[in-house]
């Protein structure tokens, strides 16, 4: 396997992408935003094409391209769209596309919890706050965009910083990512032995368990799995072994079961810490939002003055 992608190509794409994003950033209507967005999209397409050409014999599936193009395009709109509500909705699209990528990585549980937690809960909270914190337009005026939404702060410096970071991050492609060795899957029988009920159900649904028979348990309530197969006891004909070659297909440890074992057996403290963090966040949010705020009259007057000045019609 050769270079993942040519260095000059990669850095050139970084520069072009930076120029595209720079043009796409809102600058008070003076910037050719659509042109910039199209340019950035084009560069993204070129990058993906270059990746596809260098991928070698096993091409990435078309879903990888669809999901990553959707996710990155929507992310570009999140940072360039002048209306906050639309930015939040585009972020939902990014979340869904990332969920799709998680599915491709066969992390089903994380994909769906990402969509439920992010798109379902967090983003709705964001939308609520955006609506709370936006003044409703008067009866007969067109909805005006706030000045701070239509013009970016330091667009050139920020884009240069961002794409410099990208170039640095991607330089790992040229220094030995090909030498990283993939790991092997831990053998499933050791995990399977801890789930005798699952074994029993799977065997039963495939008619491999006669009436009265149960999976034999050892002292620690684990199923007894040897190289030959799983031990069954309690039947009329005494103990026997269901050979591994007879095992039904669904007698495999699934992804979510492995995540569950990893979470609860290998990292039990994580759940506790997560619970404490969520509790603290809830208390903090309650305390903060109960606080009575005296509107800073002086600051408000100044702000109104500034707004009047920038509109050009103030006194």
């Amino acid at each position, binding site marked *: 396997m050769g270079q993942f992608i040519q260095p000059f190509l990669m850095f050139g794409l970084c520069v072009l992408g930076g120029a595209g994003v720079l043009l796409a950033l809102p600058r008070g209507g003076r910037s050719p935003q659509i042109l910039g967005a199209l340019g950035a999209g084009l560069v993204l397409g070129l990058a993906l094409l270059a990746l596809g050409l260098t991928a070698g014999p096993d*091409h990435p599936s078309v879903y990888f391209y669809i999901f990553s193009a959707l996710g990155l395009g929507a992310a570009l709109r999140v940072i360039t769209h002048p209306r906050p509500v639309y930015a939040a909705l585009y972020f939902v699209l990014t979340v869904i596309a990332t969920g799709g990528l*998680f599915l491709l*990585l066969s992390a089903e549980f994380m994909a769906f919890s990402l969509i439920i937690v992010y798109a379902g809960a*967090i983003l709705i909270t964001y939308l609520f706050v955006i609506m709370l914190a936006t003044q409703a337009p008067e009866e007969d005026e067109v909805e005006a965009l706030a000045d*701070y939404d239509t013009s970016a702060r330091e*667009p050139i410096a920020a884009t240069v*910083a961002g794409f410099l970071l990208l170039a640095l991050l991607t330089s790992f492609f040229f220094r030995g990512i090909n030498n990283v060795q993939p790991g092997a899957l831990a053998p499933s029988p050791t995990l399977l032995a801890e789930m005798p009920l699952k074994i029993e159900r799977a065997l039963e649904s495939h008619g491999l368990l006669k009436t009265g028979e149960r999976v034999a348990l050892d002292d620690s309530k684990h199923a007894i799995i040897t190289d030959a197969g799983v031990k069954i006891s309690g039947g009329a004909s005494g103990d026997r072994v269901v050979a591994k070659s007879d095992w039904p297909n669904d007698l495999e440890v699934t992804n979510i079961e492995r995540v569950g074992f990893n*979470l609860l057996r290998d990292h039990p403290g994580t759940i506790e810490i997560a619970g404490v963090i969520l509790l603290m966040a809830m208390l903090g*949010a309650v305390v*903060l939002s109960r606080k009575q705020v005296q509107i800073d009259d002086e600051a408000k007057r100044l702000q109104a003055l500034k707004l009047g000045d920038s509109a050009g019609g103030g006194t």
Partner: protein
Amino acid sequence: MTLAQSGMPAAMGGATLGHYLLVSAILFCLGLIGFLTRRNLIIMFLCTELMFQAAGLALIAFGRFHMSFTGQTFVIFVLTVAAAEAAMALALVVLLFRRRESLDAEAWQDMKG
């Protein structure tokens, strides 16, 4: 189609580890640029969520590559932190908005030392 049945580290939707890391890096940098350029407080926090997404994607891609499930466990933790951050940050934003009637981050410029 479960992971255990496929049992093949190489098959990550046909793409290699590098593909996912590249997507994740681009997503992170877009989030960073958004955080630096946008002046709306809410959008700034939205951009940090973008960076969380990128981190989660890299974690899961590495976890799949090394066949370790700790990556996925850690993403659960990232989700928790993101939820906690959203709750606190949005409560703060509402408080700040009520005080200055503006979401502009530069309305609070006088706080810099």
